Structures are given as structure tokens and as C-alpha cells.
């Protein structure tokens, strides 16, 4: 049944067999693609758009197809193309050799590319369909407006047997330019189901253990991780990392290979822990492997990345940050109440507006001008501070440390605006170190 799907005249039967072997659970899509591509010498559809989630086999299927069937192709990841020139160059390079690529002018435009392509293809016309595979096509939207429409009908433009295949993680609707364009053929790669994942993962078994044993392991692994992660690459990685632990009782001779329940009991807490640490990259895979070898007690010593949140700051930087936090989360009209000593009577009803209260933290930080920051800063710091240059430079270093963000454009130097970008917990920890009770100064907590 498998090979039945992958049948297409014009290709060798053997090759199709190997292709279908290399593409487990993607036979339908591969077959569809193959039939779209037609026989090698036939013209294919000008552009095909393939979408599906991360690691649903898009690039893999295409790579295997094009490589195994030895079709002329150029694979380009658009993330690499910092300029379109790179894209053009790679395409020309893989179709016509480096001589053609060097014909490109210094800053090639799309028409340069088309011109050189036509020139070259007239010298060596395509005997088989040429394929241009573009990975990460979603980035195309950020580049020149004419690039995507042109690529979609490149076949027409260069008058050559060429097909552009776009691979993307998002749907075509998000691409369609409002000026309209040639509609590519859409092809969806659905996510692998649990059974499919099991099938694929079980294929790369460890040579020193039996098929059933490894498959049982994969079953347990999927049982833990399937709810959070369906990424094949990641699952394979996790399988490799934890397999040695799974085999441990076996090596010690405590359990037989078939005793799945005991093996499950042994590995399950371990996998749960992996989900909280190494899966989130809190702990690197190298460290994780070391931890597995260590005793239980010692392994507690390795702390994850987010455990280190403590930041040491100079004294005034702390107060600047506190002032910025207050400015971000208090309405400006309440400053008088908080920071002026004899603020007179402020009517309570006027001061506490009902819907405004408690909502500031939910709405996130608000931008504030530099003046306000400094005014609050001077009233918050317990000693007299001269407005020296280093106070100002501390503000900009807080910006580079990403504790503050500059909201206004960098060119606007006379009244810059900032936002405070730290969390409540962080600022509380900071203010504790300088004995400043920030809660008392926050409008939301009044």
C-alpha cells in the first residue's frame, strides 16, 4: 500500500521505494507532491505553497524527494538571506554554476536576476523541472514588496521549466499581498498524530537493545511529553537524553527487559523532572547528562537559569529603577499625594477613582517623561543628590540592560520617554535591599 501511493511514471521504481522508506507517515503528502511535479521533463505548476507546523516534515520530504530522485534544485532558507542578493546568488549558483553567480552586479535587483537567469537558461535549457525550495518563507513578507509576486510566477518571467516551492509555518492567507498575485497551489502538512510519532521515533532504536524494548520506552516518553510537546526533533532529543536512565535498572540486573511496569515506575519521575528542566532549557543537555550520573542529593546543586534572578545594581541605579517603576505604575496626578510632604488635603473620592484603582498593574507599565522620573527620584532618595552626569548615564545604562525601555524615538533628545520593564517581584527585591517600602508608594495597593 505504501509504494502504491508513490507511483509516478518517469521515475525509477527502486528510487521511489527508497523514498517511501525514508518518509514514514508522510506518504500521502509525498505522493501528492510527486503527482503535482509530474514527470521530470514535464512542466510543473509554477508555485507550490506548503504549510504546516514546526517539524512536520516539510523540508525533510522535499529534501528526500529532490535528492533521491536527483532533480535539479536549489534550497534556500530565507532567514539566511540578509539581502535578496544572497537568494539570487544561491539559486544561480546551484543551477548554472559559479560563473553565472558572478555575473550578478553589486546590488542586484530582481530584474537583474531575471535577466541573468534567462540568459543562462537559454544557453542550457532545462531538461527537467528545476525546483527552488524556499524555507522560512514567512520572512518573505518583510522583504521587498515585489519579490513574493515575482517568485510566484517566476516560470513565466524567466520562461523556463522552473517551480518555486515555498515552505512556511503560517497559512497562505497571511501572505496574500493586497495588490493581488498569482495564487500558488496550497498543500497542508498536518501534525503527526501520537501513533505516527510513536512509529517514527521507534525507528531509530538503539542497536544494543531490542525493538520492543525501545518501542516501550518511546511509549512511556510520549505518555509524559505528548501533552506539552509534539515537536519531533525535540522528542527525539529527549529520547536520546533519557534513554541511559531508562536502561539503568536493566544494567544493574534488577529488571528484565519485558517488565515494562517496573521500568515505567523507575523512569516516570525522572521524565517529569526533565520536563521542568531540560525541556525548558533551564538546564543544558550536557548538565542533564551529568546530573543523571550524579547522586540524587548532589544533583540538586545544579540550578536552572531562571533561578538566578538576583541583580546587583549601584545604589542610585536602584533608586532610579524604583522611581521608574513608580512613574510607570502610578497615575501622574497622584504624584503630589505620594511625594510632596505637605500636599494639603486631597479629596478622597477624587483621589481614588474606582476603575482606575488596581488596574494599573493589569494594564502594564505606562510611558513617562524623563522629568517625572527625576522628580520622583530626587524625592525618593534619602540623601541630597547632585544632578551629575553619571546619574544620567545610569539611566541610559539601565536602558541597555533592558531594565528600562526607551519609548520615544532615539533621535528625540529633549524629552525622552521611558517605560519600566521589570516585574513587581524584581522591584520588591530591589527596594528591600535599600529599605524602601515600595508598596506604600504604589497607587494600586493603597
Amino acid at each position, binding site marked *: 500500500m505504501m509504494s502504491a501511493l508513490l507511483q509516478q511514471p518517469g521515475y525509477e521504481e527502486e528510487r521511489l521505494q527508497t523514498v517511501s522508506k525514508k518518509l514514514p507517515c508522510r506518504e500521502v503528502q509525498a505522493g501528492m507532491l510527486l503527482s503535482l511535479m509530474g514527470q521530470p521533463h514535464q512542466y510543473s505548476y509554477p508555485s507550490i505553497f506548503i504549510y504546516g507546523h514546526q517539524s512536520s516534515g516539510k523540508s525533510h520530504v522535499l529534501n528526500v524527494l529532490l535528492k533521491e530522485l536527483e532533480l535539479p534544485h536549489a534550497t534556500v532558507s530565507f532567514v539566511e538571506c540578509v539581502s535578496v542578493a544572497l537568494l539570487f546568488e544561491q539559486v544561480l549558483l546551484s543551477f548554472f554554476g559559479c560563473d553565472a553567480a558572478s555575473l550578478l552586479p553589486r546590488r542586484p535587483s530582481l530584474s537583474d536576476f531575471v535577466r541573468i537567469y534567462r540568459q543562462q537558461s537559454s544557453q542550457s535549457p532545462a531538461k527537467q523541472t528545476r525546483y527552488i525550495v524556499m524555507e522560512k518563507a514567512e520572512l518573505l513578507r518583510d522583504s521587498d514588496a515585489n519579490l513574493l509576486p515575482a517568485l510566484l510566477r517566476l516560470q513565466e518571467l524567466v520562461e523556463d521549466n522552473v517551480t518555486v516551492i515555498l515552505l512556511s509555518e503560517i497559512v497562505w492567507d497571511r501572505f496574500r499581498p493586497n495588490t493581488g498575485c498569482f495564487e500558488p497551489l496550497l498543500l497542508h502538512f498536518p501534525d503527526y498524530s501520537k501513533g505516527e510519532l510513536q512509529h517514527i521515533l521507534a525507528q531509530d532504536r538503539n542497536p544494543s537493545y531490542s525493538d520492543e524494548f525501545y518501542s516501550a520506552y518511546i511509549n512511556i516518553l510520549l505518555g509524559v511529553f505528548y501533552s506539552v510537546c509534539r515537536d519531533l526533533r525535540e522528542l527525539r532529543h529527549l529520547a536520546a537524553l533519557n534513554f541511559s536512565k531508562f536502561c539503568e535498572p536493566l544494567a544493574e540486573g534488577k529488571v528484565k527487559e519485558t517488565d515494562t511496569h517496573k521500568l515505567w515506575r523507575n523512569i516516570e519521575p525522572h521524565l517529569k523532572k526533565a520536563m521542568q528542566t531540560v525541556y525548558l532549557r533551564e538546564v543544558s543537555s550536557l548538565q542533564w547528562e551529568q546530573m543523571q550520573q550524579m547522586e540524587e542529593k548532589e544533583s540538586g546543586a545544579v540550578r536552572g537559569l531562571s533561578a538566578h534572578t538576583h541583580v546587583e545594581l549601584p545604589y542610585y541605579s536602584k533608586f532610579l529603577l524604583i522611581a521608574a517603576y513608580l512613574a510607570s505604575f502610578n497615575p501622574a496626578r497622584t504624584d503630589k499625594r505620594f511625594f510632596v510632604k505637605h500636599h494639603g488635603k486631597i479629596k478622597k473620592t477624587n483621589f481614588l477613582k474606582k476603575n482606575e484603582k488596581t488596574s494599573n498593574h493589569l494594564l502594564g507599565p505606562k510611558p513617562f517623561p524623563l522629568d517625572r522620573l527625576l522628580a520622583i527620584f530626587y524625592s525618593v532618595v534619602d540623601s541630597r543628590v547632585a544632578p551629575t552626569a553619571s546619574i544620567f548615564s545610569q539611566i541610559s545604562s539601565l536602558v541597555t540592560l533592558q531594565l528600562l525601555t526607551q519609548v520615544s524615538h532615539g533621535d528625540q533628545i*529633549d524629552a525622552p520617554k521611558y517605560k519600566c520593564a521589570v516585574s513587581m517581584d524584581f522591584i520588591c527585591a530591589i527596594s528591600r535591599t535599600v529599605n524602601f517600602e515600595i508598596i506604600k508608594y504604589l497607587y494600586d495597593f493603597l
Partner: protein
Amino acid sequence: MSTSSVSKGCFVFKPSAKKKKTLSLEDHFIHGCEGADESKTRFNLCQDLWDQIKTDTELLQDELNTKILDSLLDFTRKCSSTRQHSDWASHMRASEIPTAALVLGVNVPDHDMTFQSLSELLRQSVTPHVASVQAKECGALKHLIKRVLERLLGTDVTVDDDEEEETEQPSAPLHKSVHCSLSTLCDWYTMNTKKSYSLTPGKKRSSPVKDDLQQPPIVIIFKDLEAFNARVLQDFILICSRYIERLPLMFIFGIATSPSTIQHMLPHSVSSLLCIELFQSLSCTQHLATVIDKLILTTHFPFKLNGKVMQVLISIFLYHDFSVRNFIKGVQLALLEHFHSQPLSVLCCRKKEALLNVMQLGHRDLEKIRQLPSFKRYVEKQEPQQQEPLLTDDTHLKEVCRRLIKDLHKYHKHYYPTLRCLHTLTSSLPRYPLGKQIRELHLICLEKNVWENEEYQSAMKLLKMLAKDELISLLKKCAEILQHSKSKKMKSALLLLEAMLAKFKQLDTVVAEPPPPAEESITSPVKNLQKKMDLFQLQKALLEMNESRRSKKLSPFEVLRNEALQFIDSLVQSHLSPPESQTLYEVCYYSSSATVRRHLNAAPRTSIQAALNSPFYYLQNDRLKSEDGSVSNAAPDICIVYKLHLECGRLINLFDWLEAFATVVSAAEGNDPDSDSFGKVDDVKHARFIRAVSELEFLGFIKSTKQKTDHVARITWGGC
């Protein structure tokens, strides 16, 4: 370099460094120097001292960094070696890019040194391919890749001279930015490694470790991760991960805040491509503590800072930047200023040289010594008949000076060990009465007699309550400190201390047997307490108990403890007096804290206001001198306009302002106040006024407003 430009703007001209160098540092130093005669020797002394300080601090920095750098190097080696395994697990594992997250603290200026030594070490022992990038040069992905390529291909040209011709070829197309992709790097790398191993690794390849590795890794250092554009970084990592099979890449992230920034900047899809390991560097306060320990609290360097200057430097560190580099720069400034402004700084050098230099002093210098306040005090203390030769006889004075210089050096030799002893004793006391860090204690001691301090008294009281083993361990540490000192007094002090320690030991053996006789007298009232009694009786009993305790005989340990503390106290009183009490201290101590503060912690706004309020301060023109703080009418226009605007409220009427300005200026021109033209606004005055006002606007004192026609708004408060 022309400034003809259509648009308005500032133009920065970088001075061509080579031309400037013809005017040597020395000439700059001597220019405007106090007492020009020995300025040359002073310059040399200063230069020598600074060189020494510099090399010492660099060494120190390297020492401090060794631990973290070593672990980083281990990490890189481990990563590049695991890559070459081909067992099942490593085959199955997604190939991640090994990444070291190096948490360095917020003192960003200091990081440069660390990264420099790191990349040098990496080059020496792991791989020749190291590139470090900074955020400010990598605004876009294109630039980042370009920089990385430049550094990698470029460094190789300089490292391996013999390969220059070959490497030229791949680097040539670099000028065409078309080739700025990692595939270029990939080609270059395969070519490079193939070549270097087909050719036998020659004699020129110095490091043996490199040859062990089949493929030396390519290390890319991101110096300031926080400042990078998250988007750029993500894309770069994505690209790199596509090449990881072919290129043994490795990243080092320099992180200033906390490692969780990585998670803020990179989504899971990207961070899952990295294998991140964390490295935490020494905190900057510890770093400063070692620098102070090795640089300030030592007799090694004759140059000293007085209390106020120290205070300024330390507060800049603690309050503003946490930067050790800036601290050392501050010390350098003080050093320079000291040798530049103090003619007697010729004596600020090693003892031997100083004694020689004393003999070379001329009459003028000796006069200067006589004018030193500390010397005057010294003279006053002498017998009347001895005062006379000191003030008149130059040769006698030289002799005395030699003695005084010797005394000063001796003072330092005693001061530092004693300071350290006192610090070891007090640094572990509850609530740290004399400070947690030795620098705090040092500051107290520099300020005034430490033993007159209340905190000192309370520290001593606390010390009197120490338990035996604690006290003994502390005293042992003190003995260790004293051992390093070579001076006679310190040695005799050490002997005394050791004798005391021996006595403590004896206590252990002797006292262990007989139970303390005082026991009974204490226990009986306690027993009484357990009986029933009324309030009055209870009070009485408690009082009695107190009495009996006070009158209780001191145990031998307590006697010994008091003795030990008295000894420490006497040590402190004889050696820890502030430097101001020493004669000729001015020679070694730099005391102008205001200068240091002005240079290091500039206050732009204050200086602008100072300039506007009293232009004499900067222009030094006698006509501008004014006594009562008012501005003379000959001052620059902007000063007059500024002064006038201070008299206004929040909104300033431009016409009134102009009139007032015209009146002041006319008076300055010496026009007759009674003539008709006096105070009249002519075109020139009008133009001058407008220029002055726009200058004020540029400085941010006023701004235009739409509230009222012909008015401008003041942005500052206060005034007359």
C-alpha cells in the same frame, strides 16, 4: 575634513593620534606644573608608579578571572571533544550549539578586560578562531554576520603569516557584501582546516593542544547580550544552527543582569537550539575589595589617598557605576594631580630614593617644607632652642627631614598590619560596628582617632563578650597577619601575642580540672528563685544576684581576655592614628577631594549655571569680577539675559525682556544715562538679544509657548 553641509549639525573631528604624540606626555605634565625645577623627576616618579600600579592591577584581574576562565576553557574543550563522538546517543541528540552564559555583573566598563583575556586564552589554548562582537556594531543581521566574518577571516590573516596569500582570496570578496553569508565561512573553514592538517602542523603553530582537536571550534563572543536586538540574535542563531553539522560553532554570551534575560530574549524554538551552561563571575564588590587590599592597603606604593578622596572614589563606585576600572582610573587621576600640583611630591617614592631626594632639595623646596602645616605643628612642639635651626638652617632641616621621612614610612609599616588585625577582630561582630569591609574601617581610621569613636568602644565591649574558641581563632588570625610584617615593633607585638595565645592554651589544661569556685554563689540565689516569693522579694533576690555577679571574681580566662584586648587596644592607639597627625604627610597623601569629584563626577548643569551666574569663573577676566554675586554689565549677553530672566515668573514677556537688556547693555557701553538714545533698541542690540535668547532656549532654560503671544515659558524654577 570639511564642515560644509547643507544641514545643521555637529561635526566631530577625531584628532589624528599620531601627530599628537610628538608632544610627549612629559611636556604636557611639565606645562603649568607647580615648581618646574624637579618636574621632570616628578614626572618620572609618577610614570613609574602608574606603570607599576597598572601592571599590578592587571595581574590581579587575571588572577581573579582565572577560575572562571579556566572553567570556560574546560567547557569549550569538552564541547569540541564531545562533538566528535559517534555513539548512538550523540547521533540521536539534536545538535545544539554549545553556549556559555557568562554572568559578569552590571559593571559593563570592566567587562572589556575580561573578554580580552578570555579571547587571548582561547586563542592560545583552544582555537585560533575567536570573534567577539558588540551590540552597537550589529544593528542588523547583515552587520552581525559581516563583523563575525571579518573578525574570523581577518584574525587568521594576522595570526598565521605563512598563509597570508591564500587567505587573501576568500577575504577579498568580502568587500562585496554579497558574500556575507555563513556558507562563505563554511567554505573558508573546511579549506583552512584541511590545509592546516594536510600540511603538517608546522613549528609556527605554537600551541600543542590545538593539534589534538580535529576541528578547532569557532567561538563567537557576544559581549553585551542585553543590548542586542532580540530579532537579530534569533535569526543569527537560526542560521548558525543550520550550519552546526559542518561548522563547530560555539557561543559565549556576556550577560550583565541575570541569566533569565536569555529566556526573555529567545523564544523556546530558538533557545532549544542552544546548549546553555552558566558561569558566574566574581561580584564587583569582591573585586574592589581585592583591589583595595592590594593597591591601597599596602606599603608597596608610597602614594596614598586621604580619607576624603577615598570616600569620593568609593562612593562613585558604590553609588554610580560599580566599575573597578573607573576606580583605578580615579586613583590614576589622583596620582597625576598629586605629582602635578604638589612640588614636594619628589619625596613620594621608595624610602631609599626619598632619602636621596631629600639631600637634593633646594632652598625653595625647603621653604615649602617649612610652610607645610604639619611641619609647622611639628616645630611648635619642639623646644624653643631647637625651633630656631629648623627654621633657618637648611642642612639641619635636611637631616630632620630624613628622619621624618623615615618615621612616615615606619608609620605606614605599622599602620596596615594593625588595621588588618583590628579588622579581623571586628568584622565578624554582630551588626558590624566598625564595618563589614576593611575599606570602611580604613576610612574611619583616616578620618580621626579611631579609638575615640563610639563604634570602636562598642566593638570593644562586644569583643569582651567573645567566647574562648572564637577569640583564640581570631587572635591566631591576627598573629598570622603580624607574621608578614618585617618591622621590629610588629615583631615584638607578635611575640607578645603568641605568648598570650600560649597562655590561653595553658588555660585549657589547667582550668579543666578545678570547677570554678564562683559557681556556688550563683547557683544559690537561682535555687532561691524557684521558691515562692512575692514581688518585692523577687526584686531583691534578682538585685542580689546581679550584685554577686558583678563582684564575682573574674575567671582566669576573663582576665586573660581583658589582657589580650588591652594589648590590641594599645596597638591600635599607638599605630592607627590618622595620617594628618604625621609630620610631612602632605608629601604622600593626596587630599584634594573636590578636584577628583569635579573630574570624575561631572555636574553639567551646575557648571552651566556657574558659568551663567559668574562668568569670571571660567573666563578669568578681571572686568567680570563682581563681589556680591551680581553680574557686571560687561558680561556676555547670555549671562545678562539669564540674569534678567531669573527675575521673571513662569511666563516672560519678550518685549520687557528686550527693553531691560537694552538698558543694561547701554550702561555697559558707557552711554550717557540722560541722553535720548540711552536704552533704545537698535538693530545690533536686537540681534544680540535674539541670539542670547535662542542660546538660552538651546540650553533648556526657556521654551516657546502658545499660551500667550510674545511670551516664552521658563522651564526652571527658582531665581531671585
